[in-house]
């Protein structure tokens, strides 16, 4: 759990200023999507509502690129003009000199073009932030909405980490790709085409020289990327092992200390640390080397342009300013090419992420809720199990043909060893799972006809797992019923014996429960969940008696509160206490997920079965402790 939380704490990509950077996508092992096209189409569907903005984004990209791409050529023309003036003067041509009017006009135009280009570039980025974030917003909402429609079976079969990694990390990937790489893709493509066209208008020979560097750099990058992938895989594996060791040793710190395993633990860590270092520096070097090599290829082009261009100028086939323009173009050329190659990887990663998110969205949902019967206004709370059958997996039947009628106000105790499946009945009563055959009826109505919401409002639940959310104590108690007043909250807290301790807290009912609820003891949390159930005022109650360590005085309070809460309500108790069991109207004895015995305390004792054995062992449990002298 704590490791999961740590994973969440990792700075999210969308909070990272420069995202993955131009080189980020290179060299990383690429996870491929199973259905690239289909996923892409589906993702595009989310962009559809923003079509007008996206059109402006593309148009702004075109204008911005167009205006900036003519720049070097114009600067080249200006340089040529300056050179001509200079030459004229050097050759003492009368009246010769630099044509400042021309130079001035050109430069003014150029400045204007650059200003427009910058403006449109900004417009593009500005609009894209809105589109990207709103799209991810919609995706997140859909994921959350999906969660509310998924059956409990889904949550029980997956770890939080698994689910959260899709809902958080994968969505983050999509977010930063939409934010950065989509516009990059547009401008890079446009720039490359624009630059090639501009270069062709100047000199085809030099264009060929510059463009020839392209396959060279692509080949080199591909070769390095291929190699570095292996290093990255190694680095990630080593990091995984390292983090695993850290997480494990830290969660077991007291035990590691008590059993004197520190030295061994450090030795193992050093080994893993060394291993990670070995993979990491290679991976970093492989990525780091990419930039100088790309630069070298760029410089090759630069030298070629200077030399070949120089010779061409001496032969009068191009002007001096053209060399300058080419140098600028060749410099600008390599940037979008590098970006495009990294974007290709990034897009694959993103589609793979999107696919995982969509897989989540395609999980089978709970059957639609179609209430056909009205929830009784004042439910009596009579519960009838009408020959029900249930199993989590079809091949392992658990409950077969169970019949039981619980009259209004009766108490049912569910007993059995740890892991005997005592929560199964709770799952069925609350319709977290539906029965496979037969029916559960409340006040004579099949609970499947009531609608989940309506059914659950008749129930109150106090579980051992005292779930509270981050908010005030007031909000947490008021959670029991929508629109509860302050007075009702306090009344519920009083009934649950929680009012007293709440008033000793610094902000009383306004005290914030922090993330791990470490500011409350386990017992206090339990009292709050009881107060919550009081407020809900249900006809039927589900209680799970705590076995965890609660100090005795709080435990008395909890018992009293639970006792008051049960009064006059039909109650199902997952029981751990003799007193509860003795008072129960029916005891259900469970073993390996099945109900093996059913009856009152006396009936079951007389039957000399499993319950009797358990009861005896419990008796002897308190009379045969370790230290019996």
């Amino acid at each position, binding site marked *: 759990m704590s490791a999961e939380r740590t994973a969440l704490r990792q700075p999210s990509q*969308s*909070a990272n200023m*420069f995202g993955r950077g131009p080189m980020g996508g290179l060299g990383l092992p690429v996870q491929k999507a199973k259905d690239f096209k289909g996923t892409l189409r589906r993702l595009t569907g989310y962009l559809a509502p923003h079509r007008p903005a996206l059109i402006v984004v593309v148009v702004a990209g075109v204008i911005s690129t167009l205006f*900036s791409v003519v720049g070097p050529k114009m*600067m080249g023309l*200006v*340089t040529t003009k*300056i050179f001509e003036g*200079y030459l004229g003067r050097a050759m003492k041509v009368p009246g010769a000199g*630099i044509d400042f009017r021309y130079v001035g006009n050109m430069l003014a135009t150029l400045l204007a073009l*650059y200003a427009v280009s910058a403006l449109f*570039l*900004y417009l593009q980025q*500005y609009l894209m*932030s809105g589109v990207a974030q*709103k799209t*991810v917003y919609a995706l997140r*909402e859909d994921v*959350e909405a999906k969660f509310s429609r998924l059956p409990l079976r889904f949550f029980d079969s997956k770890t*939080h980490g698994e689910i959260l990694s899709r809902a958080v990390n994968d969505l983050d990937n999509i977010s930063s790709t939409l934010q950065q790489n989509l516009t990059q893709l547009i401008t890079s493509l446009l720039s490359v085409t624009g630059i090639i066209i501009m270069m062709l208008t100047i000199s085809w020979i030099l264009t060929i020289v510059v463009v020839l560097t392209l396959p060279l750099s692509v080949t080199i990058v591909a070769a390095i990327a291929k190699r570095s992938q292996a290093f990255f895989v190694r680095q990630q594996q080593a990091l995984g092992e390292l983090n*695993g060791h850290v997480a494990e*040793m*830290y969660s*077991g710190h*007291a*035990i590691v200390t*008590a*059993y004197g395993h*520190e030295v061994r633990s*450090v030795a193992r860590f*050093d080994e893993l640390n060394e291993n990670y*270092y070995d993979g990491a*520096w*290679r991976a*970093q070097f492989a990525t*780091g080397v990419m930039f100088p090599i790309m*630069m*070298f290829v760029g410089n*090759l082009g*630069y*030298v070629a342009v200077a*030399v070949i261009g*120089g010779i061409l100028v*001496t032969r009068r086939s191009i002007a*001096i300013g053209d*060399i*300058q323009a080419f*140098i600028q173009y060749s410099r600008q050329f390599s940037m979008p090419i590098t970006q495009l190659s990294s974007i290709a990887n990034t897009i694959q990663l993103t589609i793979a992420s999107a696919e995982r998110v969509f897989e989540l969205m395609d999980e089978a949902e709970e059957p639609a809720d179609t209430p056909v019967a009205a929830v009784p206004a004042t439910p009596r709370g009579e519960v009838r199990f009408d020959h029900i059958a249930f199993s989590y997996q079809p091949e392992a039947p658990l409950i077969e043909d169970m019949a039981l009628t619980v009259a209004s106000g009766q108490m049912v105790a569910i007993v059995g060893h740890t892991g005997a499946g005592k929560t199964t009945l709770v799952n069925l009563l609350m319709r977290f799972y539906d029965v496979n055959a037969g029916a559960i009826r409340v006040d004579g109505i099949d609970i499947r006809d009531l609608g989940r919401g309506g059914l659950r409002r008749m129930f109150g639940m106090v579980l051992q797992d005292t779930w509270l959310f981050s908010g005030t104590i007031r909000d947490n108690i008021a*959670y029991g019923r929508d629109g509860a007043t302050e007075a009702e909250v306090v009344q519920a807290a009083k009934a649950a014996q929680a009012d007293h301790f709440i008033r000793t807290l610094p902000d009383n009912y306004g005290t914030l429960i922090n993330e791990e609820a470490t500011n409350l*003891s386990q017992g206090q949390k339990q009292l709050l969940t009881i107060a*919550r159930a009081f407020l809900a005022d249900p006809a039927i109650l589900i209680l799970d008696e705590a076995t965890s*360590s609660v*100090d005795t*005085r709080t435990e008395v309070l909890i018992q009293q509160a639970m006792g008051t809460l049960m009064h006059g309500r039909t109650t199902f108790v997952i029981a751990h206490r*003799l007193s509860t069991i003795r008072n129960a109207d029916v005891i259900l004895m469970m073993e390996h997920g099945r109900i093996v015995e059913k009856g009152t305390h006396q009936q079951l004792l007389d039957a000399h079965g499993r319950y009797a054995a358990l009861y005896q062992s*419990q008796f002897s449990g308190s009379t*045969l*402790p*370790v*230290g019996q002298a």
Partner: protein
Amino acid sequence: MLKLFALLKPLRGSVAIVTVLALAQSLANLYLPRLMADIVDFGIVLGDTRKILEIGGLMLLVAIVGTICAVAGSYFASKVATGFGRIVRGRVFDRVAHFSVHQFEEFSTASLITRTTNDTTQVQQVLLMLLSMAIPAPMMAIGGVTLSLSQDARLARVLIAVIPVLAVVFFLIMWKAVPLYQQMQVKIDRLNLVLDEGLSGVRVIRAFDRGADQSRRFAAANEAVTSNAISVNRLVALLMPAMFFMMNLTGVLILWFGAVRIDAGEMHVGAMMASLQYAIQILFAVFMVTAVFVMLPRAAASAERINAVLDVVPDVVDPLPPRSVEVTAASGASRTSGRLEFQHVTFQYPGAEEPAVSDVSFTALPGEVTAIIGGTGSGKSTLAGLIPRFYDVNAGRLLVDGVDVREMRQADLRARIGYVPQKAVLFTGTVASNIRFGHDEATDDQMRHAATVAQAAEFIDQMTDGYASPVSQGGTNLSGGQKQRLAIARALSRRAGIYVFDDSFSALDFATDARLRAALKADLADATVVIVSQRIGTVMNADRIVVLDDGRVVGMGTHAELVESCAVYREIAASQASLGEVA
């Protein structure tokens, strides 16, 4: 951050090499435009093709040298940065491993994990960026300015004017953006928290039919993240256009003033062209430096968290020289020793207002069971933790076989103790490796015996691979009761003289609990057994019961004696009797 960089000391040779290489590489890159200027001014103007080729060859050479320097620089930078990461990570882990349990608890487990893993990686990455960008970039900028000054001092003024303007523009944007990024993290945390609560509370949310409420909470958090992300991204969207515009503006200015200078016959065309390229290189360098500075605050926060760990001095340390103590653990031969004596022991958590344990005195003898009972917060677990020196006493003494535990080596002391914690912690491996965690050299028979006594043999035998069955991290593939029994077996495999059970039977059902205690009684007949509990049923047959209330001993004796004499004990007994616990 700087403090942490002191750890770079062993790598300083490599850092120097990186710096020199960065300098060489910057110079090479800057030399190219100058050579190009020569091509223009001497080759083209004079129409000398041979000269052009000659200079071209030189340019190629310079480019190759520059690349070699850059690649070598990247090699050393990678090694230095990851090497630094390794050093820091190793230091942090080593330090944490030697934290006393209390020091460990001062941080949370999750936070320490983050500090050891993410924070060190963060610092490592920033060092890499510093080495590969922040060191070469200023050299590029300074070298560029120097070279363009030497080309033409007057024209270089344009650059000198633009650089600060660019820097200020970037600074302003970042100054506004950085707080937004910080808020962003807070809002993302909140969103993840709501999501996490939705998953962990799914039963409760559905039971109270509050799905709509949860959706509202999520929507609000989502909304907050989205609007924050939009505003920060829109702000940062200014960066690139501003950067490009400033670069191009500089180019235009250079051309204009260059034209004026050339017209006056004070400058060559090639020099102007070179200046134009310097400008681009320099401004790009400034941009890179800004990028690095943006990463710094986050890395600085990481460095601070790392330093907080490194600054803690372990408070439980071995004495110098240690008293040599005959180690009886793991031999199984002599189990008669293990006398444990608390003499006026007081312990106060650092920063706490009240001592957790005050003036506690009692003696636990071999062959006897000593129980400690009390409510939550009465100091029972603290008292138990003092025995293996999870903490050290503030006053009084704790003696094992007559020797103050602080005078013994921790390893010697702990070798004689079998400690079972409240919460069973298991490690990745097999059932066998977890039991042997207590005693490496335990034979198969000893291991099986420990498992049998701990009532674990039955379920282990039912597992497909028996003792070789895998245990996943934290023992998540086992039930709470199974984990607890394995933790007990682990302690039993140690054949220690002293056993400390800190409320370690809580996850067991009554039947198993009873069988286990009966088996323990037979197996640990010679050992000193200390049981911490809050249940009368668990302690009532102990040879000696110590009753704690608010860290003080309020009663000591057998069950019968305490029922007579101790009010607190009677109160606990009464409350549990009313619950039907004591039948």
